[in-house]
Structures are given as C-alpha cells and as structure tokens.
C-alpha cells in the first residue's frame, strides 16, 4: 500500500524521516529510549560539572563521594574533608540549579514559541524578565532585609515582579474580553520597556558602584549565589509545571492550527491558552528569580530540538528540558572557568555560544524559520 515501503501497517506508521531529511520523527517506542538517553546525558554532564572548577576533583572521586552518601557509609573517607564541603554544599546545588534553570527556560521557550506561533518567541516575551529585573533591582538598591525559608529579598522580589508584570501584560492585552496574541506581544514589549526604564533609573539612583555591579550582574544571570533553598524553590515548580505542560502538549500541537480549526477539533482555545501561559510563566518566573535573566537558552534549545526531532510538543517539551539542562551546566562551567578566578555572568556565555548557533540554524533552515 505504501509506495515507500517504510510502513508495514497501521501498527508502525509514524513517519520515520521526512524526504528532505530535516527532521527525524522518533516512533513512540523510541521516544522513551531517547528521553532516557537524555536523562543519562544530564547525569553525566552534572557529574563533570561538579568535578570541574578551580579546585579540580577527579570525576571518579565525585562518583565515589555520591556513592558513599547514597549507601550511608560511616568509615573515614580517603579524600580531604574540604572536598565534601565543596562538592555537596557549593558545587552540587549550583549544578542542579543550573540544570533546573536550563530545563525550565528551554521548556518555557518551546511553549511560548508554540503559543504565539512565532519562532522568535522566548520565555521573556511577555514581561517576565523586565518585571523580575525591577523586583531584583529594588531589593538590591534598597537593601531590603526580607528573608523567607532561606531565600533572600532578591529572589523573592524578582519572583513577585515577574508574575506581576506578566499578569499586568495579560490584563492589558484583553480587548473586548478576549486576549489576542498580537496585543499580548505588543503589551509585553511596551510594559517591558517601561519597567526597564525604572530599573535603569534605580541603577543610576543608587550611586553605589558595588550595588550597580550587583544589579548589572543579576541582569545578566549568574549561579554564583546558588544554594539548596533555591533548588527547593525551583525543583517543585518545574516538576509541577512540567507535568502540566506535558499533559497539555498535544493541545499545544493542535493550537498550531488557527483558533477555529482548533475549536472544531474539540479544544477550548481560550482556556487552554490561559493554562499554558500560566504554567509556563510560573516556571519561568521561578527560574528567573533564582538565577537572574539568562538569555538565548529559551530561544535556541527548543529550535535545536525541533530541528532534530520534529515539532510534536509531546516529545519536544521533555526533550527541551533535558537538552536545556545539559546546555546550562556546560555554560555555567565555562562561566566559572574562562576568567578564573573571576566569574563571568552565565548570560554572557549563553549569548556568546547561542547567538552564532542560532544564526547557523537560521541559514541552514531558512525555510523552516520562515514558517
């Protein structure tokens, strides 16, 4: 029946490879294996990330240290005690946080690109970064003594600012009861410019060089101030948000059609869009709150995954999480070591690696991006 002879029957008919060979469609059975492979890649990269640094610890020793903790061995360790502190109190939370932030931003980017049917969409499109930036700037400039569950004023106010800005954009974009995608984008741009001007004003207003550097560093993103409290803030948010987004992934596929067709396929368009925006924004706001504004990850990782494995969000979303995690651990490793002992903001590394890669994709797949 099938001239290409690739599909033998209705049991195995997911397209294997499109004729122009630009995207391999993994068969359902393969998808699980690929995700497991991705998870293994995250684990290996994380191990290297923990071993990597000014105090170099062999990866095998790091693995042995994890094993010792896992089995609860009490005998004296054959390595210096300071290594334990470096690995478990400094590097491990940092690497895990980098992985979580990379995964969260990549997944949110994939969702926003799908929601807005726009390949240039990224997680910061509707005001999250400028809102978080203003919140963090206020916290730093005023030196607020706010603390909650191991989190300082900066992540707390950044989180509030991110959610507040997104909510405001959403409310502002509602024209006669319905939020339209175009007005959402425009309201995001306008409010973002407004909030950024306030942030810049505060930066100049402080007149304190140290605070200005702190704000500037935060606006480029950094994992230098990672701790377990931040991991415990982002981890559950990513788990819940990720599960919800995965459940809505097929609906997001259908939303690639226009609203009328999606409704005729049984999708309540407005409600579905709202669920997706809320879930993606919560995850993004939490990620930004704990790490600052790290650009380009949410833009390029979903594109790379989509180019390799196709546009099905049921696979694209989880695979973006894993790919983003690997990418961010590596970027943070570079940020730590390139100008050692000085640390670069990780946003510098992601933009430095991400932008050329994006241009490469753009040239290789011009017709794809034009879609």
């Amino acid at each position, binding site marked *: 029946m*099938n001239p290409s002879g690739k599909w033998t029957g209705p049991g195995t*008919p997911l397209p294997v490879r*499109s004729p122009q060979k630009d995207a391999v469609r993994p068969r359902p059975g393969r998808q699980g294996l690929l995700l497991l492979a991705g998870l293994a890649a995250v684990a290996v990269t994380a191990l290297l990330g923990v071993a990597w640094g000014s105090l170099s610890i062999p990866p095998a020793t790091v693995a042995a240290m994890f094993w010792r903790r896992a089995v609860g061995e009490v005998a004296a360790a054959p390595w210096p005690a300071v290594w334990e502190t470096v690995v478990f109190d400094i590097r491990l939370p940092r690497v895990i946080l980098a992985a979580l932030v990379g995964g969260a931003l990549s997944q949110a980017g994939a969702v926003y690109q799908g929601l807005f049917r726009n390949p240039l969409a990224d997680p910061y499109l509707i005001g999250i970064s400028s809102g978080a930036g203003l919140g963090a700037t206020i916290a730093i400039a005023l030196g607020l003594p706010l603390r909650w569950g191991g989190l300082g004023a900066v992540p707390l106010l950044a989180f509030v600012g991110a959610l507040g800005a997104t909510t405001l954009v959403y409310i502002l974009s509602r024209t006669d009861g319905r939020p339209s995608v175009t007005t959402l984008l425009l309201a995001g741009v306008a409010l973002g410019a407004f909030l950024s001007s306030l942030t810049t004003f505060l930066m100049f207003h402080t007149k304190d060089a140290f605070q200005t550097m702190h704000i500037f560093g935060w606006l480029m993103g950094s994992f230098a101030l990672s701790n377990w409290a931040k991991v415990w803030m982002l981890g559950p948010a990513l788990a819940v948000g990720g599960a919800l987004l*995965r459940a809505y992934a097929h609906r997001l596929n259908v939303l690639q059609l226009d609203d*009328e067709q999606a*409704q005729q396929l049984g*999708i309540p368009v407005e409600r579905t869009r709202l669920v997706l925006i809320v879930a993606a924004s919560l995850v993004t706001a939490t990620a930004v709150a704990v790490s600052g504004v790290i650009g380009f990850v949410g833009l390029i990782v979903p594109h790379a995954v989509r180019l390799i494995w196709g546009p099905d969000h049921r696979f694209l979303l989880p695979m973006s999480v894993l790919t983003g995690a690997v990418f961010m651990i590596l970027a943070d490793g570079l940020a730590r070591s390139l100008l050692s002992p000085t640390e670069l903001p990780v946003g510098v590394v992601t933009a430095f690696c991400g932008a050329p890669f994006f241009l490469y994709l753009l040239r290789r797949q011009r*017709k794809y991006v034009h879609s």
Partner: protein
Amino acid sequence: MIRKASPRSNTLWQPALSPPTDGRIMLEACQVTFSFNGTPVLDKVDLRLEEGKMIGVIGPNGAGKSTLVRLLSRSLTPASGRIWLNGQNLDQWRLSDMARVLTVVPQLPQLPPVFTAWEMVLMGRTPYLGWMGRESEHDRAATRQAMEETKIWHLADRLISQLSGGEQQRVVITRALAQEPQVLLLDEPTAHLDISYQVETLSLIGRLVKERRLAALAIFHDLNLAAQYCDELVLLQQGRVVAQGSPNHVLTPSTLRQVYGIEVAVIPHPHNGLPVVLPVCDSPSR
C-alpha cells in the same frame, strides 16, 4: 421572498419548534439571525440536516453562506434563534464531545508547514484522545484508512510546506473524515481542486454520506457541481433563504435571474436529468 415549494420540501420543512426525538434530524437551525456591526448577515434562517443527505448552500458572494457554517459549527454565536445538534442545544455541548459528532472543512485553512501530512490527519483524532494526548492503535488505523480513502496515503511522509494547495485541501478533508463525525460541514470543499479531484472528492463525500449515514452541508460556488451531488439545495441571498428544495426546483432561470441578476439557460444533464446551468452570454462576435 420567493419560496419554491417542492413535494419533498413540503414534507421536510415542518415548523421547527421542538427538538426532534426520532434521531433522524442531526442538525437543526431555527430562525437563526446574525448581524455583524449592526449589519444583518443572516435573517431568520431555518435549516435541517438529515442523516444520509447532503445539502448544498448556494448564493452570491456575501449572501451569508460562510457565516451560516460558522454559526452551525459554533465559531460564531447567533444573535437570536436556536441551533440543535442531535436534539441538544449547540452551546450546551462540551467542545470535545461536539467534535466527535460534528466537524468542519474550512475554506483555505492555514496549516502549520512543519507537520507532515500524516501528523496533520492524525490531529483529527484529537477529540478521542485521553488527557495525556497519546494516540491508540485504533486512532492510527482510522487515520490510515481515511488517508487511503482519499488517496493521499502516498503523501503521508511529506511536510505540509511541500504540498500543493489542492493536496493541502485534501489533507484537511481527510482530517475531517478521520474525526469520524456524523455531521460534516464543508465550506467550498473543492475550491482549490482541479476537475478530476473535484469529482473524486465530492463522489467520496457523497458515498460516505450514503454509507455512513452522515448529515452533510456544503457551500458551493459551482451550481452544476451542487446540482450533481446534493439531495437538496438552499439558495441564500442577503442572509435570507430565497429558495430551497431539490436542485430541479431551486435552479430555475427565473430564480437565478432574481438572485444573481443574469440570464441563464437550464437544461437537463444528458446522463441523469439533473439541472445544468449555462450562462447566456451576449458575445459581441455573434
């Protein structure tokens, strides 16, 4: 207002006041009115879609044909009047339940170019999927069967961006069939197809209407195709039904002159006696 009475339409068109109970009427519109920015688009339209019948909606540009389809598919809400689907008020249906019963083939739909034809047709199974959105073997089988019926199985691996306009139109028709509906609304289903695919597609839809007892409504610009494939025609002009009934009763020179403002000759088709409309052109060369 001209109302061409035919024996069949007399028995079919009872005053539609209560939802039918015998299940034969799948979709019923009663006194449906819609206006856009104060301009009336549809005015008190009555319509009944019956199992196993195809109704053709014809009329000049701007007569309200597409608006009628959008009202019947709940993309628009009528200003007044009622629409019943399977005896239940249209806006009381859950969207996913409704999508298993009624579907639409839109006119010139925008399709995302990065999906393959297979993936696009498989989306027709959306209303049958569980909360994780995973397709079953049955969903794949129904999709493959629909693609074989419309003869686009060989396009399965192609990306939408690699398909011609006519092929994309057939993909959308196939997606509607994979949805396994009982009511099929088509907005100019053959507008971008050449004559062979027009005939093939309409014959397929006509066969499915008879075999699966579908209730179908299709918008036509081509009066002759409408006459060939529809059991009944509804002629709209400026939002009003001006004639309805069998093709022979609707497609008359006097009615068409009134609605379209042109002279036509109507002759019987040599094979089946159905009306064929020929415009009378005053060509300067004769």
